[in-house]
């Protein structure tokens, strides 16, 4: 097994278990963002229903929540429980999302922006939950109100004592108007804005959970709401201090700190932890490769690279060089992840092109160009002496394909398998490879988000540039896996090698390959 750090190992084992239980398509770990959105939809719909019956006054709030929970338990009561449990579930999915990105080292380098905008977003969610608990106006709400005010009083820009508002006889219904505004409108708007910023540097952001996962999650929430309906504490009594509280630890875990530390120290602990989390991408920093470069004289502005870029780093603009094409592409270097997927998208990356030596493509990677990729393929193939020659392509971010190198298997490593031009498969087969074995991140999980998805679609023929039908598909195998899947990948390779050997024995006609038809189609 490849050496792997214990945090990543823990994540990979959990991921493997969910792949086994749900399959990659419904694996909750591959859908944490969409699941969080789904839970918020449940929170929104149930919250709107609860608001119909909620009385926004000090005297009426608790009574109305009791009505919701007991008189109309079959509908509003269930809605209340789903509102609470879906909010809690959302915190778990957010924390799992952070754990996933951290354990897979997907929070540094070009991902710094998503990470540092994600950490405060968690606080927006937490404070939204806290104001929700205030509205119930039970003993827990009073506890939160007093301690939140103590925290606010410790801020240097807050004058006066907010906490004194919660002493007997000093509270008015305006407090509930403010809380209602914050919880129902102000904070949700802020949260939506924060999420929009968080995903700003991504393309193809998915917000809908797979139907099967959504149905399963909904049924589970409903079952929990019926089995363990949510109850309030006793009504808030300003002259009493609640002794035992059933805190919702997903949202209210900071408050007990105030029993051990002053409000200022509690701020320092929470803000310090938050800043430390936000600084993680630079502790230590991770170097991102050199961004993609456009060779305008080889680019027809088809925009396929812009369509495929998972990080929204490529823009299509009006042509500036006077060429006959209407558009050109421009790379935003500060957003480029250097994944090379654009190189695989570009029809001009066709290795059969001989008009231009060395091979120059429309959009290229400075440190592993289309020309270098072709040269490396040629080099490793020339070293293979076995009867059954297998060429292995793999990426840098998961199982290390170097371990598959042998007398009859040559290895070419790329940044991401989405970087592989479909025509390179045909080229390698024409150059004498008997079989092409491609690894890469586990299905459903790509370090660069869409590399293995685009590769599959190109091979299926549903996305350009397609793997042409004349490439013998029997001689190409994709077997993906994580760092801990080495044994399975080795077995797949051994089986593939046997199958290719059998194919070689029965099929003496090598596949006929066209040279650069795709390129001609593209008009380059």
């Amino acid at each position, binding site marked *: 097994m490849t050496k792997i750090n214990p945090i990543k190992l823990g994540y990979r084992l959990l991921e493997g278990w969910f792949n086994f*239980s749900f399959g990659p*398509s419904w694996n909750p770990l591959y859908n944490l963002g969409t699941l969080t959105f789904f839970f918020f939809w449940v929170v929104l719909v149930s919250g709107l229903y609860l608001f119909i019956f909620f009385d926004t006054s000090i005297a009426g709030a608790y009574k109305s929540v009791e009505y919701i929970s007991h008189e109309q338990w079959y509908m509003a009561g269930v809605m209340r429980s789903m509102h609470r449990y879906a909010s809690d579930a959302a915190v778990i999915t957010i924390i799992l999302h952070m754990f996933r990105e951290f354990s897979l080292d997907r929070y540094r380098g070009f991902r710094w922006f998503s990470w540092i905008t994600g950490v405060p977003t968690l606080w927006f969610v937490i404070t939204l939950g806290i104001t929700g608990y205030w509205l119930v106006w039970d003993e827990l709400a009073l506890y939160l109100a007093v301690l939140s005010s103590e925290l606010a*009083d410790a801020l240097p820009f807050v004058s006066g004592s907010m906490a004194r508002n919660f002493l007997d006889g000093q509270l008015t219904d305006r407090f509930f108007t403010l809380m209602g505004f914050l919880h129902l409108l102000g904070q949700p708007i802020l949260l939506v804005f924060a999420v929009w910023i968080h995903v700003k540097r991504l393309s193809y952001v998915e917000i809908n959970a*797979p*139907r099967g996962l959504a149905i399963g999650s909904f049924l589970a929430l409903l079952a*929990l709401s019926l089995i363990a309906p949510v109850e309030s504490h006793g009504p808030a009594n300003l002259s*009493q201090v*609640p002794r035992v509280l059933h805190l919702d630890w*997903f949202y209210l875990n900071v408050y007990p700190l105030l029993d051990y530390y002053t409000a200022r120290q509690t701020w320092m602990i929470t803000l310090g932890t938050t800043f430390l989390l936000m600084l993680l991408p630079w502790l230590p920093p991770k170097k991102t490769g050199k961004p993609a470069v456009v060779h305008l004289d080889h680019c027809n502005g088809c925009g396929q690279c812009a369509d495929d870029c998972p990080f929204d780093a490529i823009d299509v603009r009006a042509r500036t060089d006077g060429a006959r094409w209407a558009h050109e592409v421009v790379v935003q270097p500060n957003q480029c992840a250097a994944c090379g997927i654009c190189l695989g998208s570009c029809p001009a990356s066709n290795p059969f092109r001989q008009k231009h030596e060395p091979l120059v493509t429309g959009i290229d990677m400075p440190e592993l160009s289309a020309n270098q990729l072709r040269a490396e393929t040629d080099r490793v193939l020339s070293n293979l002496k076995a009867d059954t020659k297998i060429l292995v392509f793999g990426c840098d971010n998961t199982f290390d394909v170097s371990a598959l190198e042998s007398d009859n298997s040559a290895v070419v490593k790329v940044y991401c398998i989405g970087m592989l031009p479909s025509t390179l498969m045909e080229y390698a087969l024409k150059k004498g490879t008997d079989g092409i074995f491609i690894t890469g991140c586990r299905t459903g999980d790509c370090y660069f988000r869409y590399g293995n998805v685009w590769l599959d679609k190109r091979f299926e023929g549903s996305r350009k540039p397609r793997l042409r039908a004349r490439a013998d598909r029997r001689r190409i195998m994709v077997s993906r896996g994580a760092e801990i899947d080495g044994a399975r990948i080795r077995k797949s390779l051994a089986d593939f090698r046997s199958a290719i050997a059998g194919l070689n024995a029965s099929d003496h006609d090598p596949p006929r390959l066209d040279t650069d038809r795709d390129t001609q189609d593209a008009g380059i």
Partner: protein
Amino acid sequence: MPESNPHIAPRRINVGYLLLQAVNYAVFMAIVWYFSFSPPYRQLAENSAVVTLAFGHASKRVSECSVLTQEELDKLAPNMRKPMDCPRQRSPVTIELRLNGELAAREVLRPPGLYQDQSIDVYRNIKVPKGQHHLSVWMNDDSNVDGPTFEFEKTVNLLPAQRLVLSFDPDKNGFSVN
């Protein structure tokens, strides 16, 4: 809503896998349910009460207004020549709360503001055992006076979980309990 992840073919539905998924959902919801209420948090011991010292107060000014002499006025710029000089700075406030003769809290509060001219705010919770207690409060809000400017004493009987608020209003005879 997509039937599955739009980029990956869904797995064929199978009763065994559905049961396995149900187990996963059950574990997930068990975690949600448990940490939504548990473990319970005890913030106050069974037989305890809380005395809350809470009030806002503008202390005495450090010095009174004085009339400037003509000589002093002449030294000022023409537009600054007001006959009365009223320093804004207020005195620091010292408060001591004793329970049954023992010092329970002592605060020395400097008035906030650039000129230290604003009201001080006190909010302090002190956990005490239930039962009878003798409270005594001592406060000095005038730096020109040695010793207390306000004092208060009272014997109270506190019930479990009761919050007794000790507040202060100089216009209503100083300290009082609610």
